């Protein structure tokens, strides 16, 4: 009898012990939270409380909720719910709560823009222990940005990496030789026109600090590389050698550019300073050499050469040495971009009469075609800074529009709309 009860007692302890450990962990603020890209975090976003400010404040609260929820969904890292009753299908680990206090009464009466006080909190669930508290005072035009900022904080706290909620995509819109640069928030809102010079402007690239966008333009008659200062809208010429000045990519340091210059001869890859001084020529051949893209290490780059007769991808280092061919499948491979994570390259390949987007490891392995015939033509792929999303241009609806693709989910959403073709997108960092 005694032995059985001992064994029973032992078994009881063994069964109980794990639950005790869990209970103990839940009492402390969760410091370790590992998210794997394939496992999403369930998060509850309750309706934000409106403490004052009437209907305008209610509207502000609605926008904040919607944008925070959309940002978390777009990241691919979360499943969001809006009520506690979804707790049976969603295992909430966190919740977001917020309060909105409307503008002062006299501002409402005068109709002036006045800041609203917003407080947004991330708490553990169900214990509701405060993890993050952020306070903002946005003007009406800044409400979406406020929500983006907070969503970024949540993502960064949970994953240790920056979110992309405050990023933008710049692209070229128009037909024929009348195409200008436009920028849109990464979620498709806030469309802005950046140039209006009645000529062909395309192939933009953001500087790492977001202060400049370089682009190829025919604004002075022949092709040149120009730089737009994003804060002021001012444009300056970077370089305008004879022939092509094309496909510039910023070095991760932000201190130089790489691009293709033909200089009266055939196009070659050159490193240049932001003021247009040539630092180094990387390729020498009778072939077309274009479309360079730096690795995030800043040491190597991928580019296109047709030295074998048709365009293929090659890797080379910043001194022009160590050239090795990367693509052996497909007759026509171009428009490569190195992932910010360093391990993959996305590019465009021609299959039959259409162009499709391909993902491949920098080793050349795991070649995966992301789009197919139902996409029409898919071109100009560009990584988001999270190394998980790609923006590209596709004419699947009959006119080229931009789409954002989630590499891990194999899902996409349309980013731009309207009748004019959108091409050559570039994602800010």
């Amino acid at each position: 009898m005694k032995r059985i009860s001992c064994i029973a007692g032992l078994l009881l302890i063994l069964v109980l012990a794990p639950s005790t450990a869990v209970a103990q962990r839940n009492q402390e603020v969760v410091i370790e939270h590992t998210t794997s890209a394939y496992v999403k975090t369930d998060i509850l976003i309750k309706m934000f409380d409106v403490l004052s400010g009437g209907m305008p404040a209610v509207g502000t609260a609605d926008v904040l909720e919607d944008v925070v929820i959309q940002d978390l969904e777009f990241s691919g890292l979360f499943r969001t719910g809006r009520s506690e009753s979804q707790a049976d299908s969603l295992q909430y680990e966190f919740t977001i709560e917020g309060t909105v206090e409307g503008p002062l009464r006299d501002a409402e009466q005068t109709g002036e823009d006045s800041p609203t006080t917003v407080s947004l909190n991330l708490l553990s669930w169900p214990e509701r222990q405060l993890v993050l508290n952020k306070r903002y005072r946005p003007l009406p035009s800044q409400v979406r940005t406020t929500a983006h900022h907070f969503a970024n904080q949540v993502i960064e706290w949970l994953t240790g990496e920056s979110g992309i909620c405050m990023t933008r995509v710049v692209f070229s819109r128009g037909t024929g030789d009348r195409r200008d640069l436009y920028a849109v928030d990464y979620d498709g809102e806030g469309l802005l026109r950046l140039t209006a010079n009645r000529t062909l402007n395309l192939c933009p690239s953001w500087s790492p600090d977001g202060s400049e966008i370089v682009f190829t333009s025919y604004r002075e008659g022949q092709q040149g590389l120009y730089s737009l200062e994003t804060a002021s809208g001012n444009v300056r010429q970077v370089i305008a050698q004879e022939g092509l000045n094309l496909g510039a990519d910023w070095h991760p340091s932000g201190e130089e550019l790489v691009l293709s210059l033909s200089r009266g001869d055939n196009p070659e890859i050159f490193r240049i300073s932001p003021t247009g001084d040539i630092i180094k020529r990387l390729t020498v051949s009778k072939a077309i050499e274009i479309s360079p893209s730096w690795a995030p290490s800043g040491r190597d780059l991928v580019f296109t050469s047709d030295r074998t007769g048709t365009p293929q991808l090659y890797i080379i280092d910043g001194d022009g040495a160590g050239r090795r061919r990367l693509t052996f499948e497909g007759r026509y491979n171009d428009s490569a971009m190195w992932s910010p994570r360093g391990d993959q390259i996305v590019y465009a390949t021609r299959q039959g009469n259409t162009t499709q987007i391909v993902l491949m490891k920098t080793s050349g392995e795991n070649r995966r075609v992301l789009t197919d015939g139902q996409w029409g033509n898919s071109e100009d792929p560009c990584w988001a800074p999270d190394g998980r999303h790609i923006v590209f241009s596709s004419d699947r609806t009959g006119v080229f529009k931009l789409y954002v693709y989630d590499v891990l989910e194999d899902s996409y959403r349309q980013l731009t709309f309207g009748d004019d073709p959108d091409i050559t997108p570039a994602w800010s960092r």
Partner: protein
Amino acid sequence: MNRGWISRSTLLTLGLVLIVAFGLLMTGCGSKPDVETEPETEAEDQGQVEEIPPTIQGEETDTIEDTMPDYASMDPSEYGVEDVYFAFDQYDLDNEAMGILSRNARALREANVLVLVSGHCDERGTIEYNLALGEKRAKAVRDYLVSLGVPARNLRVTSYGESKPFARGHTEDAWAMNRRAHFERP
């Protein structure tokens, strides 16, 4: 009467005669320019009438410029310069293209103005590679024209790639129309 002296009346008469003779002589010199010399020529022409060349057909106009076209303000197609076309993914000139360019060379030498040669591609392929291919097409045309005597300084080269098509549509015909080198005023 005095024996050794010429009489006064004789002297007077002699003087008068001298004066009159001298006067006649002077008048004779003075009247020489009045003598007509032309009658001699007229006398020679009396037998022939010059033939006046017949007028040519045309509208009477008083503007001098019409005799010389203002090439600098004209589109090259207006003075006989034609576009040339290329095969898919190619930038070399076939026989037909070379024939067109020979005629173009004559017109361009005559016009002697700066002309822009732009290279174009069909919509297939990537933006950047098509810009490079378009440049190769324009350069091939420029180099051939220079070899036929068109001054290099009169030809500027650019490329629009696939971004400025001539024919819309996604058919072989539309694609063929867009693979070209085009001539325009800069």
